[in-house]
């Protein structure tokens, strides 16, 4: 029995030896093929990339930036620089309808625009209307926008619903909102007025006494949205510790809004205040949506007037120099006013960085 065991163990040992031998042979074969494959790889592939020199890295960086910026800069030069230089040149030209060419005419267009703005009974009141609508937007729409952003940021009850509804007008097509508003005011508001005993309810959108007010109301009414989001975004960056400190001190919401929130988002506010100055001259209210190119002259603003001189149904090449002259004059006024506004806001506004 013991001999059999010994015999078996000899067989097992022999088998193990053979197995080990085969393993070693297989490993040697694998190593051989691995060496061959490495040798083939080295022969067929490029040598390992050298560490690039500083100048080569810089060259590739510059090439990358050229690829990145060439197109936007080209568009900037064509769509902004060239267009504006051409606009200045156009100011001093007049269109010859018979020959179909522009010719130099000196200050004729500027004189015409100035005289229209000063003495034309239809055009001169437009400037006043533009200023008043800007003032209304600044005094009512602008503060409301920040206050609404603040209460949404504070997550008051129903803030989610308020945020959605305030944001909707900037998402929905302005034409859709205009048409809904127009039909609602035309058909429902008079019926409500009549129900309250008014005998001849006015047509709010076409009565000259109310139409301009309605335009201003509408502009503010649909004007929340993207600004609201940017204000809320700026407010959400205010460190919690500052707000919590105020809460521990027991300040009211209004005080927190006035003394903490406003100074902390002042930079964002400055952007909208400063860039909004130009809207005195470009602001059209919603006249184009409501009336197309035929808005009553009694409610037209300067921005609308010049816009429809260029794209209106009766607009021709002959109107372009006049519009360009208006643009140049307004730029000469708007640019210093904007810079002054910026300087004032930075000089007298709160200076908080966090």
């Amino acid at each position, binding site marked *: 029995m013991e001999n059999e065991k010994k015999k078996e163990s000899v067989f097992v040992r022999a088998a193990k030896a053979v197995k080990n031998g085969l393993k070693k042979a297989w490993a040697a074969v694998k190593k051989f093929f691995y060496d061959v494959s490495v040798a083939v790889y080295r022969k067929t592939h490029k040598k390992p990339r050298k560490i690039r020199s500083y100048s080569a890295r810089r060259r*590739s960086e510059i090439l*990358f930036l050229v690829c990145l910026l060439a197109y936007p800069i080209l568009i900037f030069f064509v769509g*902004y620089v060239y267009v504006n230089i051409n606009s200045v040149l156009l100011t001093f030209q007049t269109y010859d309808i018979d020959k179909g060419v522009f010719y130099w005419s000196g200050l004729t267009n500027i004189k015409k625009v100035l005289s229209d703005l000063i003495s034309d009974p239809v055009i001169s009141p437009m400037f006043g209307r533009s200023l008043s609508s800007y003032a209304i937007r600044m005094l009512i729409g602008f503060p409301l926008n920040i206050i609404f952003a603040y209460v949404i940021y504070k997550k008051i009850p129903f803030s989610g619903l308020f945020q959605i509804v305030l944001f909707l007008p900037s998402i929905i097509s302005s034409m859709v909102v205009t048409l809904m508003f127009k039909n609602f005011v035309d058909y429902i508001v008079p019926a409500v007025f009549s129900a309250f005993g008014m005998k001849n309810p006015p047509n709010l959108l076409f009565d000259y006494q109310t139409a301009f007010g309605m335009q201003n109301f509408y502009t503010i009414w649909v004007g929340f949205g993207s600004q609201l989001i940017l204000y809320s975004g*700026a407010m959400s960056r205010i460190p919690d510790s500052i707000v919590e400190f105020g809460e521990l001190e027991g300040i009211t919401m209004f005080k927190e809004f006035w003394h903490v929130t406003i100074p902390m988002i002042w930079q*964002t506010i400055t952007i909208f205040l400063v860039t909004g100055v130009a809207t005195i001259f470009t602001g059209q209210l919603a006249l184009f949506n409501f009336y197309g190119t035929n808005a009553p002259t009694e409610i037209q603003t300067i921005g609308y007037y010049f816009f429809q001189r260029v794209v209106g149904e009766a607009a021709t090449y002959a109107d372009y120099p006049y519009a360009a002259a208006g*643009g140049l004059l307004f730029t000469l006024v708007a640019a210093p006013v904007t810079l002054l506004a910026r300087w004032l806001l930075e000089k007298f506004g709160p200076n908080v960085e966090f």
Partner: protein
Amino acid sequence: MTTENNTCAAMADVGTKLVKGKKQKSKIRKTFMRQPFSIIIFVLLVFYVISFLSPLIWAFICSFKSRTDFVLNKFGLPEEWMFENYPAVFKELYIRVLTKSGFKNVYAWQLIGNALFYSIGSTLVTTTSHCITAYAAARYGKYLICRLLYPLVIVVMLLPIVGSLASELQMLHTIGAYDNVVFLMFMKGGFLGTNFLIFYATFKGISWEYAEAAFIDGASHARVLFTIMIPLAMTTVTALALLTFIGYWNDWSVNVIYLPNFPMISYALYTFQNNTINSISSVPHRLAACMIVLFPILVIFLVFRKKLMGNLTVGGLKG
């Protein structure tokens, strides 16, 4: 054991945060309702919500009324729900344009297709252009041209040039690009405006260490931009792209100014309000047309609401 402890700690942390959040919310609610300033604002907001939703709901209900039903019953629900108003409007919503082969009617499907083509193309060009320029300005400040970009945008915003539309149209006429949708889309590739500032603030806020680690591993500049930085800024990219798309989709004035013969759906609505075709010139039909234009945007808004209303910041004007 350690993992369990960590999980418990994390859960406890989340729980504390939730309780803290709830407490804070209820505290805000309590203090909010006691202060006159807050109550006035709350009432104003409630009025705003009512004033905005009333015309919207009224328009939706009226779009299902018949012409006579609308005249007799302006406030209530329709006597009979006229679902056929929608197909009728869809069928008649068209614009007549001048092509090389003469006049041609462009119907609703093509108007939608045109709007999609223009909006998607312009959004891609605009967003990409703003994004990459802002990235270069924010992260390659060692080059003069990149350093100049941010102040340039600020200066352009601060120095408003008013009334260059006439010059722009003259240029388009001169080079034969007027009424050319592809050219107009490519012209959207500038970098001026608020979007640039938002992207700039975003890229400034992303740590450059990710990029440096990638550079050490041998990544190229393009690879860092497209596989690291843009994915990290994806929230901003998506929000701005969606807002830009919506802006282009809704922009009906582009047909009035630049593309008279490439009509889009929102412009069709503008012309539709002056429509005199007897069968569809009633108020319910006009309101049905409004709903048709409104619907896709409302769907996009509801789906991407959180992305659209996410936190966007523009930084400051100190260049």
